């Protein structure tokens, strides 16, 4: 028994020390870690940026986590992370943090590729999500209930959607709720009668983006401010960032970083 316990203990020590040996060799090169957390909408893009960044800066580890805009803002206040990610504007009481605008993201209204509808007025979309239009027939398609999907309370994407599309109307409580862009997209991609909203950057051939009042969601229309459902992606820092953190922020704002974001369907700030 005690032998077994000792053996387990030993293997643990070996395991931990093998980890720390790795660390040691890296400490020699002064390894730094940057922890980033927040909006699930921003996260995939920052993850991509960090993969490129770490190729050029092998001595800096970038740790990207999701958790949501609000959690990111909170964690930034607590200084448990280096950079917070937000996909919504800061509220009054959160203004103490430093905002860095890294890009703009359009929110695209998406339906299943089989859906013949290509264009809807903003008012109709508002009517769908407020529960006033419940059947595709009312929009000139077949007699079938609309399976609308929204995001959960507290999500930055939902916040932007409420502000830009819903205006003062409430989202109907009979509408389905999912907790990430990815899961909304998954449902729309598999249910022919679904409609939802996701980051423009995530739209691909599996879902069809609708034009709003005749204007397509694309980079030109966002840059020219004709497409209106747009929200900022923000980096947040609490006080002046450390040197290696600043290096990453500079990278994101550099031409190389902005090109990566553009390739992902986002609208750069440079």
């Amino acid at each position: 028994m005690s032998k077994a316990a000792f053996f387990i203990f030993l293997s643990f020590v070996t395991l931990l020390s093998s980890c720390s040996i790795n660390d040691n060799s890296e400490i020699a090169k002064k390894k730094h870690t940057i922890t980033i957390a927040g909006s699930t909408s921003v996260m995939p893009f920052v993850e991509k940026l960090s993969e490129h960044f770490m190729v050029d800066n092998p001595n800096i580890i970038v740790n990207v986590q999701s958790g949501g805009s609000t959690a990111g803002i909170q964690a930034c206040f607590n200084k448990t992370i280096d950079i917070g990610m937000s996909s919504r504007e800061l509220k009054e009481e959160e203004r103490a943090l430093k905002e860095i605008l890294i890009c703009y993201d359009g929110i695209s209204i998406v339906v299943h590729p089989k859906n013949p509808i290509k264009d809807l007025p903003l008012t109709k979309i508002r009517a769908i999500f407020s529960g006033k239009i419940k059947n595709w027939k009312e929009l000139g398609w077949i007699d079938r209930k609309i399976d609308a999907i929204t995001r959960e309370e507290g999500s930055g994407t939902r916040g932007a959607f409420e502000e830009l599309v819903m205006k003062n109307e409430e989202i109907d409580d009979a509408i389905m709720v999912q907790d990430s862009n990815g899961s909304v997209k998954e449902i729309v991609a598999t249910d022919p009668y679904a409609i939802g909203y996701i980051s423009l950057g995530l739209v691909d051939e599996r879902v069809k983006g609708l034009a709003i009042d005749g204007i397509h969601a694309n980079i030109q229309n966002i840059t020219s401010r004709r497409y209106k459902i747009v929200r900022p992606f923000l980096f947040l820092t609490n006080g002046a960032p450390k040197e290696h953190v600043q290096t990453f922020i500079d990278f994101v704002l550099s031409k190389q970083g902005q090109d990566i974001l553009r390739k992902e369907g986002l609208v750069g700030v440079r």
Partner: protein
Amino acid sequence: MRIKPRIVDVFVRISLNLQAFFTVGILAVIVAIIFIKGSPYINLEFIISSPQDMGRHGGIFSTIVGTILLVLLSIFLATPLGVGTAIFLTEYTKESVFTKVIRFGVESLAGIPSILFGLFGFIFFVTKLKMGWSLLAGVLTTTIMILPTIIRTSEEAIKAVPRSLRIVSYSLSATKWETVKKVVLPSAAPGILTGVMLSVGRAVGETAAIIFTMGSSLRMPLSLMDSGRTMAVHFYILAREGISMENAYATALILVLSILSINILAYYIMNRVISKFS
């Protein structure tokens, strides 16, 4: 018209037979689907390389490491605690209000759903104790979650050790602790091991409690304060966000296979114990 009881009897027998095999069939179908869909994407590369691009490409190495670290550390903490509790309940006390209260605690802990462990771990370890999403917070939460399983199975195993062996040990001048250490625990070890294995299975498959305490970073956790992702959490995110169905199925296959083999091993050990004592 009255149907003859004999005919009813035959009918019941056949339908119960079908029911039982239908139920086992569900298990078979689940495993088969996962196996058929997942096996084409599994290779050594998938196991030993780390995820890239959110898991769309690359393998699942960092999540395997995350799973192993989480499970081993939790077992390392929960086993002494659970076995100690079981020893205390069976060897050091007589049935009393005190033991009833402890048993009530264990039973209640066993019934708490994992999301509430997640909620607790999030507010207590992650927020109040400022551990952040970390391996440590995940380990501590998982430890509490698997504790009741280890206590219950260890208690059963310890109770199955014949009383006469204890009496002999005392008569040979052993103290209580020496008796426990040298006679009771070695005899109960296989039963305890079964409980530990079942707990490993539970921890490997757990998502709700872990995602809110250990976080979901894809980076390999190198210290207790690093966040990390277990295979189950990785599978959940891959499948739910439609990142890559191929990798989701492959991850599910490795996940299900490891849990099934752990559980089968646990039953095997348990059966050997049962045949040893009867």
